[in-house]
Structures are given as C-alpha cells and as structure tokens.
C-alpha cells in the first residue's frame, strides 16, 4: 500500500473517521445530540463534495481491489445525498420515539461506507465485505427502536433473510473462485470467457443473482421487505428503500457485466422473468394496502421490477449500454422521490406520535391540516407514478425506451401497464389527502423541524429539477457508465 492508494477512498475515510468521532462524542452529550447530527451531516456532505472533486481521475488502488472512476463517483455522490437526506429527517423522529442516540448516525455512516465500497469494488472479496458492512449496519438500524416489537421484528427478519442471502451470494462467489482461481472482476471474467459458458457458470450466476435478489427485494425473495420497512424507524425505512437498493444495483451491474459476461444470455432471461414477477407482486400487493408505509414498501418492490427489466435489456443488448445509463438515471430519480415520500411519513409521525398509524385514513383531510406536507406528498406520489414533469416520468421514459431498444418492446408494454396500475394506489393517497374528511379531530400541529423541512424541500427540488432538466443527471450517468464500459 502506498499513500497514493488512499486517494480513491478519501470519501470513505472521511465517513469512517466521522463515524468514530460520533461514537467518541456521544457519551459526552446528554440530551441534545445536535453535535452528532452536525458531524454526520458534515461528513456526508464532505464525502459527496470530495467525490465530485475527484471526478476525472481514473485510478485503481489496493492491488486492484477498488477503483476510482466516474461510475464509482456517481454512486458515491448518490449515497452521500441519500445519507444526508436521511440524517436530516431523523433527529425529530428519533426524539419523538424517545431513543435519540448518536450511534444511529455512526451506523448510518458505516452503511454508506459499505455501499461506497460495493459500488467501487473491482474484486469479489471487497464487494462481499462492503455488502456485509452495509448489511450489518442495516440490521441494527432496523432494530434501532429496541423497545418496539415491530422494530425488533423488522431487525430479526432482515437479519435472518439477509444472512441467508449473503450466504447464497458467497456460495456463488466461492464457485466462481473455484473455477477461475481469481477474485478480481476482470480476471474472473476473462477466465470464464476463455473457458466458455457451462452449467456450472450458470449455477454460480443464479446463486449470486438470488443472493443479490434478496438484498434488493426481487420477487419471490421480497417477503421481508414490507415487514422490515413497516417496522423500521421511518427515516431508516426511507434509507433502506433507496440506499441498499442502489448499492445492490451498482454491484449487480458491475458483477454481471464483467464477471458473468459469458453467461449474459442466461442472466438476461432470468432478469426478464424476475422483472415481470417483481412488477406483478409489487403492484398487485400495493393495491390492497391500507397502510401507506407498507404500500410504499410494495411500491419499492415494483420499482425494483422496472429496474430489473432494464438489467434484462442490458444483457440482451450486448455492446449498447444505454440500458445501464438509464438504470443509473432511474436510481438517482428514485432516490429523491422515495426519500421525499418517506420523509413526509416521518414528518406526520412526529406531528402525531400517538395517533398517526400510517394508515390511509390518517391522511384524510391532510390537505387542509398541513397543506405544504400534502402538496409535497402529492408531488412525490405523482413522481412515483411517473407523471410528466417529474423525475419519475423521465426515469421511466429512459428506462422503458432502452428496454424497447433492446428489442423487448413487449416487456416495455408490460412495464407501462403495471405503471398504470400503480397510479391507482399512488393517487389514492392524494384523494384521501384532499377529498376526504378526517374521522377524528387532530391536535394542533407543531412547527416542523428545520432539518426535516430542508430534507423535504431538497427532495422536492430534486424531483422537480430532474424532471424538468434531466440533462445534467443523464450526462453524469452517461459519462460514468459509458466511460467505464465503453
């Protein structure tokens, strides 16, 4: 290792140091945890800024374990943004839950470090430890409210399925190592290409796919998702729905395109089948939900389905990588709209800790009670549906058109049909907010906390800006993905 090797991981080093600082400062803070919130937020912003500043460098470090390139930087910035928005919406919520502790922010920072490593890794072992770092932190975040049975349930379910999924992924990786004697993506990929596709390679592909499918909640491996999102603290659920998913996709894109290049016919078919199943499960079950938090969990499964369709197209299209770019773009758009939607839930929960149960009925009359929250929620719902003018629309447009380009027009049609179905459950929330009278009287509302308001505002701005001016994010996605694999 040389000092040069440290440059690509400066964003992660900042986060790790900040996390340790949070842990050290925590015992000295009594009730007011502002200092730790500030440390975490500063670190995330600094890591994002440094990542942007590193743009343009191409460097491999730590004996080719990890690389710095625009692909990695795109995700590092995305994860830092997701982390920062989550940190901003957390303090008030945790105070209301009676468990505002600095360790929360440390765990969040560690999870972001793990995700960064996943996106930047060029080695199966580095990828796996990054995955585990993210996963272990996530289990703990899910169970953070340890006196609430639902939070315990979430942590337990997440841990059991997650550990199982990790084991399956690891089994696939071990098969690959056994066949090639290497763990580096390029070496493994070249070695597998040389030996050709075989049933064994297909088995390894399927095992890694299943393991990662658990992590990003692909049907039929999605069972844990609704329970975990519902039980976890709402800001954590927001983070789960975007962070680990984007990290999973960042790693899946890399692993399947480089390591399993030889078996791309196999995995593209698998992804297409799973995409249809996932879209169906996500949308069909979201339709029946009366609990908005749970509905958003199922809707996140549906969005994974759309992304999988993109992955399937990517396997089909060979050298044309437009599907990959559109996946990156969609992930960016999805991050803002989903964080925003969960942020509104967190805000409403802090307003009515006792009475707000995330059910649709609780949204009745929200348009009159807190018009700003209702308008923003409406914006996020529109965006999730894919209404023109929002980020969700542009994301779906690019994604589905790339699917069409890969000669999978029928798949795009299915995806659009499912999107139309999703309009029902997204718009139902809007109907409740603006056109239903509340059944019970709600107490007067407290002023919204500054960071939470900022988080919501930034999410909304992100949704609108990406929706109206998609070019700059698309450019970033194109240059990061195109440069890398082109």
């Amino acid at each position, binding site marked *: 290792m040389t000092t040069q090797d440290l440059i690509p991981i400066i964003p992660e080093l900042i986060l790790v140091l900040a996390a340790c600082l949070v842990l050290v400062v925590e015992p000295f803070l009594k009730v007011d945890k502002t200092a730790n919130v500030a440390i975490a937020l500063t670190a995330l912003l600094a890591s994002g800024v440094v990542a942007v500043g590193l743009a343009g460098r191409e460097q491999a470090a730590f004996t080719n374990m990890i690389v710095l390139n625009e692909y990695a930087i795109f995700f590092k910035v995305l994860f830092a943004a997701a982390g920062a928005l989550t940190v901003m919406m957390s303090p008030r919520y945790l105070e209301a839950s009676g468990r505002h502790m600095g360790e929360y922010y440390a765990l969040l920072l560690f999870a972001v470090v*793990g995700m960064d490593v996943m996106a930047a890794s060029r080695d199966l072992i580095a990828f796996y430890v990054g995955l585990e770092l993210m996963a272990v932190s996530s289990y703990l975040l899910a169970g953070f409210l340890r006196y609430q049975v639902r939070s315990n349930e979430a942590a337990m379910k997440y841990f059991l399925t997650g550990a199982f999924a990790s084991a399956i992924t690891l089994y696939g990786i071990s098969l690959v190592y056994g*066949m090639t004697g*290497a763990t580096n993506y390029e070496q493994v990929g070249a070695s597998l290409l040389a030996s050709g596709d075989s049933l064994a390679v297909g088995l390894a592909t399927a095992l890694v796919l299943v393991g990662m499918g658990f992590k990003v909640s692909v049907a039929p491996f999605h069972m844990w998702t609704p329970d975990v999102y519902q039980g976890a603290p709402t800001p954590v659920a927001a983070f789960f729905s975007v962070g680990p998913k984007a990290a999973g996709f960042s790693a899946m894109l890399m692993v399947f395109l480089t390591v399993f290049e030889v078996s791309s016919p196999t995995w593209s078919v698998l992804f297409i089948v799973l995409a249809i199943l996932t879209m169906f499960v996500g949308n069909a079950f979201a339709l029946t939900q009366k609990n908005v938090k749970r509905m958003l969990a199922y809707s996140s499964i549906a969005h994974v389905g759309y992304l999988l369709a993109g992955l399937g197209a990517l396997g089909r299209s060979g050298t044309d990588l437009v599907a990959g770019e559109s996946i990156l773009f969609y992930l960016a758009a999805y991050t803002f709209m989903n964080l925003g939607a969960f942020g509104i839930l967190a805000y409403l929960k802090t307003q009515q800790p006792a009475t707000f149960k995330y059910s649709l009925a609780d949204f009745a009359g929200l348009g009159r009670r807190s018009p700003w929250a209702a308008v923003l929620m409406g914006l996020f719902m529109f965006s999730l549906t894919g209404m023109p003018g929002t980020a969700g629309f542009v994301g779906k447009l690019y994604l589905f058109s790339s699917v069409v380009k890969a000669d999978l027009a029928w798949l795009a049609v299915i995806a659009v049909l499912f999107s139309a179905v999703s309009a029902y459950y997204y718009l139902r929330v809007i109907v409740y907010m603006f056109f239903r009278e509340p059944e019970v009287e709600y107490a007067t509302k407290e002023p919204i906390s500054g960071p939470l308001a900022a988080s919501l505002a930034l999410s909304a701005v992100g949704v609108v800006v990406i929706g109206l001016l998609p070019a700059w994010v698309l450019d970033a996605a194109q240059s990061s993905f195109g440069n890398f694999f082109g």
Partner: protein
Amino acid sequence: MAEKLLFIVFAAFAVAGALGVITRSNVVHGLILLVFTFINVAGIFLLTQAHFLAVIQILVYAGAILVLFAFVVMFLNLREFQQEEQFHRGQKWAVVVLAPVMLAEIVFVVTAVTWSSVGDGFTPEAIAAQGGNVMVLGEQLFTKMLLPFEIASLILLVGMVGAILLAAKEDGESVCLREWDDDDCVSASLVEREV
C-alpha cells in the same frame, strides 16, 4: 495411505455428528455433537496442511460461537424440544424433493466443474517454503487483502456497537409492553421497579 484413512475417519465422524445434530431432540446433545462435528472438520483441514485454518475452526466455531449457544441453552433451560405444532406441515414433504436436488447439485458441482489450479501458486510445498501457513496467510492479509481486512474490522466495530445498542440497560427509555405499536409505552426504569 494414512492420510486417506484419517480423512475417512474424520469425514465419517463429521457426517455422523452432523446427522446427530439434526436428529437429537435434546438440545444439549445436539450441541455436543456440533462441537464434535466442528472438531472433525478441523481435522480435515489439518490433513490438507491448512494448520491455521484448523486451529481457527476450533477457536472460533467450537470455542467461541458454540459457547454462546451453550449459554442460551442453559439460560433458557431447554431440556427436550417440545413437540410444537409446526406452522407449515407441508414443509416436511418438501424435503423429499429438495434433499435429492441438493445432493444432485453438490455431486454436480464436485464432479462436473473444472476446478482451476490453485490460485497464485499456493501449493502446500510452496507455502512451506515461504515459512508456513501463518506466515503466508498473514502476508496476504496485510498486502493483497489489506482493504477487505480493514473493512472487516469495521464490520466487527459495527457488531460491537450494535451489541451495546441492543443490550445495554438505560434509564428513562420507553418500553412497550403489550401493543404492537408505540402505545402503552412506559419508561424502562418504571418497568424495572414494578417487576
């Protein structure tokens, strides 16, 4: 020859032990057999000249992890598994399908896969020439595998933070006794006084 014989002995004991673990209804008997299985697996590692791995297998699995199992068993004072109603009785029949599939898969993986020659030329002779198992492994860990090694240390740190977070006793925190949501919450100190 002696190694083959020893391998058969270790392997047979390991399999027999593992079978015992899943067939005993007495938890502690299962636990002892699990320790026995792990030690035999360590024996197999020894036969492949992986001394360090063998010792770590005993230290970590047989020594550390299973002691925690033993603690749980003793705290709960489990004698025999109660014959509880199973939620999914049909699962019993899935075994008939899944077990042969699993067996076929393992046989396939072992026989059909063309295993690469040992990566980076780490044959037992080469390892011995470089100063033995521990030396070579340590060198790899701190040069080629430095980054994963350091990240693994972060995972352990997170685990430690999490253990304290989930288990440490605190005052003034709310405890939810009955409900599945955050109603009926009382402060932890109150519960301690009452119970």
